[in-house]
């Protein structure tokens, strides 16, 4: 038979063994609660009472005929002929630009006028581009007011213009206008027509459609401090 006093001592030791743990848990909880309370009380926010306006710039390139321009067809071009047409390119967006290029997509009723099968082509159409610092006199191809004529693209066969070629590598200011003379020429070459019939591979009586694509890139990105 168990002794009653021994039972009482054992129960008392089991109850007192949990007390330090309970105190620690309670204390930790109090500390955590108090700690978070301190952090929350240190938060602060600031904001601009007037919203900041941000707008992006625009990049735009307009193309206008100057005189007959591109919209007027070239007819009956003969070997040695040069046909000068004039267009104005304007960087009319908000952003300055750079790197003006020209590509010409060409299709034709006969490959002879577009590419004559030789490398490099010697008989096919060629395109030349010049700029005038003032304005062109489209009646005679002179640069008005003693302006400066700058060659931008040497005579290039159409096959060499299927990929974009550089016209102006540098910067183009906002609203800057490029006054361009675009020349289409057919290299001098000889063909003899007998009894009204041209030779089998002929440059005569052909047609081609040229699509000129001018392209510019935005100026480089900048970092401004103000």
């Amino acid at each position, binding site marked *: 038979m168990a002794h009653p006093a021994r039972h009482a001592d054992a129960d008392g030791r089991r109850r007192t063994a949990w007390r330090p743990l309970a105190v620690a848990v309670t204390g930790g909880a109090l500390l955590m609660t108090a700690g978070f309370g301190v952090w929350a009380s240190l938060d602060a926010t600031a904001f601009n009472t007037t919203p900041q306006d941000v707008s992006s710039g625009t990049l735009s390139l307009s193309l206008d005929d100057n005189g007959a321009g591109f919209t007027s067809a070239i007819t009956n071009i003969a070997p040695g002929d040069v046909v000068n047409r004039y267009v104005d390119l304007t960087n009319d967006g908000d952003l300055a630009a750079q790197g003006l290029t020209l590509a010409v997509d060409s299709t034709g009723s006969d490959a002879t006028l577009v590419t004559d099968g030789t490398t490099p082509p010697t008989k096919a159409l060629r395109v030349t581009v010049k700029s005038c610092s003032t304005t062109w006199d489209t009646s005679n191809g002179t640069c008005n007011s003693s302006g400066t004529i700058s060659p931008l693209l040497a005579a290039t066969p159409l096959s060499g213009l299927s990929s974009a070629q550089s016209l102006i590598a540098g910067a183009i200011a906002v609203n800057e206008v490029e006054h361009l003379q675009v020349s289409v020429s057919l290299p001098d070459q000889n063909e003899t027509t007998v009894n009204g019939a*041209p030779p089998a591979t002929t440059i005569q009586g052909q047609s081609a*459609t040229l699509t*000129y694509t001018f392209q510019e890139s935005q100026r480089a990105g900048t970092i401004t401090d103000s």
Partner: protein
Amino acid sequence: MRTSLLAATAALVLTIASPALAGEKAKNSRTQTVGSASWGAAGSTTSGSPAIGSPFTLHWSVSILGVNPQFFNVVNTGALALNAETYTTTISGGPKIVLTACVGADWSTVLGLLGTCSGTQVALGDSSSGPTAASVPIPAGSHVSVKAAATGLLALGNYTTSINVSVSRAQARAAVTTNS
């Protein structure tokens, strides 16, 4: 709060960097059509169409009474004005055939079968001279009137003359530069 701050900063950095990364481009295109010219000439009867690609032929029946001249046209078949042409006249046997152009007018047989020219006569060679380059202007869409005459000793019989007309690029209008 910290997460929001980091997100806003990242967005700002990306916004600043985007112009250089995106590389916006602007382009504009126009289409232009180009057609090349043609040049050439061919013989034709005075009332018909030119025989494109074939020599123009004349048939002769030489009798003891002789043979009368024949008249035909050389038509500009191209789009360019011609300054000159090269004529090659051949005949198998028979008489010598002489070609003469009447520039500025047509040969007329009103006053006689030998024909009269109120314009300027220009020799186009003959069947014994081989190719002959003649400076006979023929505007685009126009023609020149030509007389073919049999000369020399006339051997009786039937003969056929072939006349080839060739035009090189150099014989058409010169190259030009146009501005418009």
